[in-house]
């Protein structure tokens, strides 16, 4: 996983959203998803590449943080790319796309505006697939130590001697 993480630079979302580069742009050969500039790639083990790209987009739409790069969302949902989870995930994404087409005429990942994608998600938020993905993200995304600095959370502090000399009372704007 650590190796993949380093390689995963670039944004599935960006390509998915640009009309010109449709989803096919990501699929290199049979088993890879990659950014259009080929600056990241992840090998697919069990999921269809376009399904995985859709899943990454769904993850970002559920917990959108504009300062978190796609690679952290990829890590958060990479678990679905396994033999025992892929079938469930493929079925869930197919249902997501069906719902998306009903509402907008497009597959989920091709819908241009977040608000339109969110409307699709809202319409299925009580369903098991949505809840599984959302619930998994709570730890899958926010328990990645790599994202903590983006939120200003410093994590473990014992090895640094606590905050007694590192700003536990350094607030400047309270009298």
């Amino acid at each position, binding site marked *: 996983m650590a190796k993949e993480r380093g390689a995963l630079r670039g944004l599935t979302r960006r390509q998915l959203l640009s009309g010109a580069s449709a989803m096919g742009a990501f699929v290199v050969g049979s088993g890879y998803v990659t950014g259009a500039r080929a600056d990241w790639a992840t090998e697919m083990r069990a999921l269809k590449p376009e399904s995985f790209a859709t899943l990454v987009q769904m993850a970002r739409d559920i917990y959108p943080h504009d300062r978190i790069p796609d690679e952290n969302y990829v890590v958060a949902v990479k678990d679905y790319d396994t033999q025992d989870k892929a079938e469930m995930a493929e079925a869930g994404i197919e249902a997501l796309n069906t719902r998306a087409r009903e509402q907008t005429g497009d597959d989920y990942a091709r819908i241009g505006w977040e608000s339109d994608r969110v409307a699709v998600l809202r319409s299925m938020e009580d369903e098991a697939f949505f809840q599984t993905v959302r619930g998994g993200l709570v730890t899958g995304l*926010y328990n990645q130590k790599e994202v903590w600095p983006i939120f200003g959370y410093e994590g473990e502090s*014992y090895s640094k001697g606590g*905050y007694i000399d590192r700003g536990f009372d350094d607030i400047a704007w309270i009298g």
Partner: protein
Amino acid sequence: MAAPFEHSDDSVVVIIGTGAGGGVLANELAQKGVSVVALEAGGRYLPEDYVNDEWESFGQLAWTDPRTTSGDWRVAHDFSGLPAWIVKAVGGTSTHWAGASLRFQPHEWKARTTYGALDGANLLDWPIDEAEMAPWYDKAEEKLRVTRTGGRAGLPGSNNYKVFEAGARNLGYKEVHTGRMAINSEWTDDRMPCQQTGFCFQGCKWGAKWSSAYTDIPRGEATGNLEVRANAHVARILHDDAGKVTGVEYFDQNGDMQMQKARIVAVAGNSIESPRLLLNSASSMFPDGLANSSGQVGRNYLRHLTGSVYGIFDKPVHMYRGTTMAGIMQDEARHDPSRGFVGGFELETLSLGLPFMAAFLDPGAWGREFTSALDSYENMAGMWIVGEDMPQERNRVTLSDTEDGFGLKVADVAYTDHANDAAMRDYAYDVGARMYDSLGATRTLPTPPYPSTHNLGTNRMSERPEDGVVDRNGRAHDVPNLFVSDGSQFTTGAAENPTLTIVALAIRQADHIAREMSAGSL
């Protein structure tokens, strides 16, 4: 005879659970020369084992065996398998606790008399009162080295506290300080001062915070009178034809069933496991569960009404730096029905790390309304509401159809707010939001209760046997040599964090048991 003790030794006091109640009782009895076998379902972890990481620590220490939920409370929906946040380890939940150590207010011992009869509430006066408990509170505060008692200095104020204090002062509140905390503000014989690491809920790696895991338990063991068996899960309490308890059956660390004989059994498994154990110990003589002729075992489950308020500002706070809960506003703890509810509440500073904030801020929520709040994590301040909730018969621990790994029926925890609880929480949310608004908060977040950390009341103390499970000394009304020694004894919950009272009751109970034993009446 000195520890270790034989399984067949029927002269020992068996204590089930080694948390705030059981751990203290074990040491106090050992100090008095009483032979004690303490059986603890969890393993043994010490400060060097604790980890500054919320989920990893949870995995290490928390009780994650199955439990089920019912009732209207939101926890049953959001965390259906996790009604409570309780530790399974030597030292029990005193490893996770934040250290806030408050005495009850005098009127809170007499809730039924003070508040009157409330529809749907099963209020009752405690059979003991302020005057009787005062000397035991003195001892408990000494044991825990509580700040702002016994001449000990308060802790310094953290960033989160400074925001909290300024907001409270803006609203005219007077009783605002860095708390009475079982956290050292200076060196004592065995514990160092707080280093403001900010992981009080994950076990204090410096040992600055009191926990029975590294204070009372090793001290008791040092007497030679206490044997602690870790990874020993008690399945059932046994009794003879006379209705006296004779020992317990437990699963040892290998999963093998063992039997330990006992002269006295003290149950201290926390307010969810203690009633579960009594109910699982039903027999032909006690068909509704041990000590349950009143039908009150498991009922009147209390959890404090709780809730949090987070405030977001346009500038950094870094609330996670420093002690998790060293800050309090007590002006609203009084009983003043003109506010629209009986009883009162404390507001205390609180901080969660980013991973727990994501899980607990608004469970189930998603989308930008949620994530934009987390984006401001660095600029957030937080506080927790601890208010007295009403005892209700329907709020209860029962046996679920689900079984644990040993094939024992697990606890189902049912809870539904009383109207008084809801009114108090709304009022407290408003106070908290106004505190932050007065400082220019750009957003405030009234956050729902977390899985219960204060579990109380399921084997309550009563004057009359028909009203509760145990008497004024924690002795079962129905069984002369069976005691309850944890938070489940609470007749009512009061507005204060419960552990100082649990500890004071345990010290008092040890005194009672030792006296009765030497008088030959136990």
